[in-house]
């Protein structure tokens, strides 16, 4: 298929799977990565698969008889698995991701976790976002990266969270990150009269108030930034035209907006996207299959769009989830909170393949997969080899880098 044909095909909304085959031929041809690590051309997209994605039914150990013994009602049938090798394969819902894997642009890191795993959604999410398993941190690891690499020229869009609540991972001391749930919602209503708009824009920055509040400074800062960024963002990204048909799902829309922001070259270094909930205590097969399919299809459209704009090599996508799930299924066709699980790195600079260790279903930690790769090793790798910053200060220690990036 020629490039022209490809564009016509996407315009008509053909299946994503078929198109990615051709799009990634370019990546395979080893197009040089843009800039050095840390170049403003490079962006990280962090996807939170929230709720605790069951790793064993996502990256399936189909060669392990124990898996089928422990999950009689829940295991993914051998015939349905999309095999990577004789032992490991993808969940059948992730055809698109598998096709990207086959093109060498997906790294699967298995057994990722941290010492003394916490089974609380809340605390474990916080641990993954702050990269601080052994202390309480108020800033996120990307927030500290923003602070650590403060540019001379302030940029309202160095980080963007595609969510309603600002995730802890992007909370920093000095960098305000806009939380943009959707572009259409990110604009001040225009029907306020012009005079009150003028007055509003000049004023309310007076700090001589007859009270003090621990939240006053934050409110004032965000109010000001919201006003400026909501005026600028829609204008700055208006010229972008997607060249893929995204699935009509939340993750589809979120990644479409991510591609638009990246393609508009605002100097954005990191974008946060969320997808879930993967908290499958009951009826896991139906729920997780649907969610993994939505994730995989949206990623397919995302990289198709990025590639069509020549941006695919600029964008590294990293997934995480607060924990994997218990190896043995529970009585409700589901699984309870567990420990280590796999994560994915996709796109720019990735050396595709399987990393980490196979889940050992015999030597478990109270029925949970033991971790073998510290999640901070993944962050250290991304910080140093992709974002181009020393990782020790940001992570509060030195962690071994993984060979997953070029």
């Amino acid at each position, binding site marked *: 298929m020629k490039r022209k044909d490809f564009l016509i095909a996407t315009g008509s909304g053909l299946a994503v799977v078929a198109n990615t085959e051709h799009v990634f031929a370019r990546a395979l041809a080893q197009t040089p990565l843009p800039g050095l690590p840390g170049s403003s051309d490079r962006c990280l997209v962090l996807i939170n698969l929230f709720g605790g994605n069951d790793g064993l039914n996502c990256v399936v150990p189909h060669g392990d008889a124990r898996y089928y013994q422990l999950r009689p009602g829940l295991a993914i049938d051998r015939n349905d698995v999309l095999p990577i090798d004789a032992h490991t394969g993808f969940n059948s819902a992730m055809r698109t991701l598998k096709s990207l894997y086959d093109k060498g642009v997906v790294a699967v890191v298995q057994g990722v976790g941290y010492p003394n795993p916490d089974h*609380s959604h809340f*605390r474990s999410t916080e641990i993954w976002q702050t990269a601080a398993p052994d202390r309480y941190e108020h800033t996120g690891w990307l927030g500290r990266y923003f602070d650590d690499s403060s540019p001379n020229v302030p940029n309202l869009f160095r980080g963007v969270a595609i969510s*309603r609540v600002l995730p802890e991972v992007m909370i920093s001391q000095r960098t305000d990150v806009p939380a943009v749930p959707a572009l259409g919602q*990110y604009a001040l209503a225009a029907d306020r009269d012009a*005079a009150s708009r003028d007055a509003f824009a000049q004023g*309310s920055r007076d700090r001589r108030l007859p009270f003090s509040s621990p939240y006053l400074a934050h409110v004032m800062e965000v109010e000001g930034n*919201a006003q400026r960024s909501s005026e600028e963002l829609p204008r700055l990204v208006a010229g972008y035209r997607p060249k893929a048909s995204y699935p009509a799902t939340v993750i589809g829309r979120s990644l479409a907006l991510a591609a638009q922001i990246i393609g508009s070259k605002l100097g954005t270094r990191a974008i946060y996207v969320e997808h879930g909930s993967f908290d499958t205590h009951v009826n896991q097969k139906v729920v997780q299959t649907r969610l993994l399919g939505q994730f995989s299809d949206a990623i397919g459209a995302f990289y198709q769009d990025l590639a069509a704009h020549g941006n695919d090599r600029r964008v590294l996508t990293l997934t995480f989830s607060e924990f994997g799930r218990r190896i043995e299924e*529970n009585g*409700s066709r589901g699984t309870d909170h567990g420990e280590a699980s796999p994560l994915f790195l996709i796109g720019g600079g990735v050396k595709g393949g399987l990393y980490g260790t196979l889940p050992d279903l015999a030597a478990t930690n109270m029925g949970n997969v033991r971790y073998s790769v510290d999640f901070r090793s993944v962050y250290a790798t991304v910080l140093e080899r992709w974002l181009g910053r020393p990782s020790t200060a940001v992570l509060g220690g030195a962690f071994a880098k993984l060979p997953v990036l070029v």
Partner: protein
Amino acid sequence: MQMAAQTHTDVGGILRPQGHLDVATALAPYEAALGERAAAHLLRRAGFGGTPDDVRRFAAMTAREAVAQLMKFPSAQSIAPPQALADFEQGSYTGKARGREGRRTVVAMQEWWLDRMLSGPAPLQEKMTLYFHGHFTSRATPRFAWITYNQNALFRRYALGNLRELTREVSKDPAMLLYLNGAQNVAAHPNENYARELMELFTLGVDAYGERDVRESARAWTGWQVNRRAGTSAFDASLHDDGQKTFLGRTGNFTGDDIVNLIFEQPQCARFFAASLLNWFVYNDPEPELVERVAAQLRAHDFELSPVVATILRSNVFYSERAYRALVKSPVEFVIGTYKTLGLSSVDAGALPALVQMGQHLFYPPSVAGWPGGQNWITSGTMIARQNFLTQLLGSQTLENSSWLRGLPLSASAAANDVAQRILQGDAAPATLAQLNGYLAGAGTAALAALSTENYDQRIRGAANLAMASPAYQLN
């Protein structure tokens, strides 16, 4: 690993006010007459704000009188459920229609609740119902809408009731059994979801128990089943694990009720609720010394909320400068407070979509931990939603019903002062006042005619919008 036992779940962005706490006098009664500023503060914290008339009425009272007023609740029996629920039941919908009509019923319940907050007889009762909704979280079950209503009614019934009893009740509540999978928790296959959150988020906090306690508690809770159609729960002994359990250092053939009782014997439990109540009513991240004093009160009153909440709302620390405007308005407080402030007595169609955009969708908390609050409410996205709600409401027909907006003086400076006083109770910065004045006098940069009968309606709406755009208005 050095970590103090936590008195609340640390989500980040939760800030303690600066300055020094006088522990010795913190909970002693505040004796002065309230005045408008403290009256407005009490009405915001113990409810959802007051109309200018409410503020004036409470200003003349002492804290003791005012709190006694606020604690008069209608009986649970006297509160009729929203009509939409009966209509939904009457319809006996099935399949897709049931889902659609169920969702419509949930919307009707949301509006019914917002109206109770705004103009019901007991805002504190609704404030506590909202507190419990965020504390003992569950999501709506639209196809079985009564289940959602019944949990809301349970919280209202226990609004100032006994925390231990409420914890036992909510553990067997159908909405909770469905949300945290208690209904799937059976002897043959325990499901730990509820057992974990009961301790972590509802009663003790992290670090106060071990993994084994979670597993043993789950066994004790086995056997509670839900009849969705009837909206009821019942204990099925054949699904219950009848064996010995070892929980928090004690061994016995425990049931769920025993688990709650054992949890409430832990000193940490009173601390956990004390910190949570202080966070809700006074300020965030309260000092451990203050938490300990309130925890002692909870224990002394055997976890009865009424005397403890009364003590908090009458206390010196509650009326201290450190507590004043020390919380961020939640979206519900922002929205309902705005209708109240404007003297409106029912919410309009703009309220619900605005709340969703601001991040507080009633009956759909974002996670089992409820709404994180504090600084987390304020992002650029939610600030835009807040401003857009104001612009929409102040431009709408709804405002015709305002009890006071149409009756202000025509003098620009007098009108500016009135607007600032009624909306901000003296918390306007000099620049905000000057701006309001200039805007109404026509002396601002954008050349405008001075306030007059011709432009009165439009200009007063603009002035109210300006006052509400002040940062103080985001703070509670």
